[in-house]
């Protein structure tokens, strides 16, 4: 594996994998313990609208995703808390709406859309350096916000009503959390693509939950798991010349299932 590191694209890929592991390790823990996997999947898929927007405006699609995913996070949070629709119905509608907007915008764009598959399924081996810088900035924002509001986030996830009673602005803080999920999705798109993002958000966190019941330790562990899985996935995908995003997800899922299986047998 070491000789692979002489290639710049491999170094970038590993760097991107580690940066992705940091954000999804931290935010994935919230997604898993607060059981908001569905809404996170919704934000991720609706972000496809932002890819379409990027193509349509002729800019880097990632720059289209950033505002679009934040907008979908805010509208999903708002609709699921305030509207009279059941939460999962509301999310389902917005999920499909975002994707539809993306498809229409892509089709309206003259010529054909290069790399569309990259955004859907990710390709960590082609991450340009500029995107790594963006990932670094987003990671820094995520760490800073979680560090600042750690105790409030914990209270919010554990017991929203009591957090409110203690003066936490629960609804606002929940929207902040959804925005952090949106940022994480932007970080992850390059690595595994919109469709597979949800695996990176859930598997490392769910696996770390097996080893500790302390939120901070869960975050550390899931960052570690994410980094190991994504590096392993990159190496395998290079070795067998198969798509990197799918390989990373498959490595994670197989390890997690094997682990659960072995644990199930031994207990």
């Amino acid at each position, binding site marked *: 594996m070491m000789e692979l590191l002489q290639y710049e694209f491999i170094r970038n890929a590993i760097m991107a994998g580690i940066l992705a592991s940091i954000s999804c390790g931290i935010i994935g823990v919230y997604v898993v313990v607060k059981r908001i996997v569905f809404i996170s999947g919704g934000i991720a898929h609706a972000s496809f609208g932002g890819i379409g927007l990027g193509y349509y405006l002729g800019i880097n699609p990632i720059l289209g995703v950033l505002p679009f995913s934040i907008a979908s996070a805010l509208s999903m949070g708002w609709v699921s808390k305030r509207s009279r629709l059941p939460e999962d119905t509301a999310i389902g509608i917005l999920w499909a709406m975002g994707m539809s907007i993306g498809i229409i915008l892509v089709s309206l764009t003259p010529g054909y859309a290069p790399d569309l598959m990259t955004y859907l399924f990710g390709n960590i081996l082609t991450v340009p350096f500029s995107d790594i810088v963006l990932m670094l900035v987003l990671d820094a924002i995520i760490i800073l916000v979680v560090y600042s509001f750690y*105790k409030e986030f914990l209270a919010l996830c554990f017991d929203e009503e*009591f957090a*409110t009673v*203690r003066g936490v602005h629960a609804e606002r803080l929940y929207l902040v959390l959804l925005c952090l999920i949106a940022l994480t999705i932007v970080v992850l798109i390059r690595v595994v693509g919109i469709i597979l993002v949800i695996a990176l958000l859930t598997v490392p966190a769910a696996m770390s939950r097996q080893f*500790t*019941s302390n939120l901070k330790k869960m975050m550390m562990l899931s960052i570690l798991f994410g980094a190991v899985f994504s590096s392993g996935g990159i190496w395998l995908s290079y070795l067998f010349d198969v798509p990197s995003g799918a390989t990373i997800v498959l490595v994670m899922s197989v390890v997690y299932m094997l682990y659960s299986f072995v644990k199930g047998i031994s207990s």
Partner: protein
Amino acid sequence: MNMTADVVVIKDVWVHYDSVPVLEDINLVIKEQDFLGIIGVNGGGKSTLLKVILGLIKPSKGTVRVFGDTPQISRKYVGYVPQYSLFDLEFPVSVWEVVLMGRLGHTGLLKRYSEEDKKAALDALAKMDMLEYKDRQVGKLSGGQQHRVFIARALAANPKLLLLDEPAAGIDTIIQEEFYELLEKLKTKMAIVLVSHDISAVSVYVDKIACLNHRLYYHDSKELTAEDLEATYHCPVELIAHGVPHRVLKKH
């Protein structure tokens, strides 16, 4: 804080759920060091009334003042033990972390919990006899133990008004008695509102009683008239009044 000795002032308050009235024309004044028991049938609106005082539910009519301010502003001084704590039993959080959450209103954003916060949390845990479970995951405790943790969480805030929604439910009799005795001590430092179905316990420990069945029957004392109880429980009831302990019994 306002200088007035009135802890809670509720004026002409109505609460509707989907246009069905749940609280009708509630007027209530709770004073400093009051120990008020609220009794009433299931669905009478007791939990709703506590949530109104906490500002979790906005009345459709009327005004609520807590320590002379809106409930939202005064929350800091209010401790709350909910009737049900619906939380995920798998949630990775320790007893200690949960009790510290009671201190959130005091610590302020962007700050870690201070030594003072930690001391208050330790005291509260000791009061509920839960110190030895400090590092356990909350979801792995028994139901009654969890409930004691939630009482400790409310006490950790050192509130000036303590709202208890059936705090004794599911707690064994030894701890229950200790708990009521603890409340007797606490009432010199704070006003306490105790919602309970345990009428005999209420009549022994509280200083004042109110009946709630959509409307509130309260005379700022421990006396309730036969009409009050009939309106509350929809059946003839008899008061063995003025004796000690005051008891409210159903006639057969």
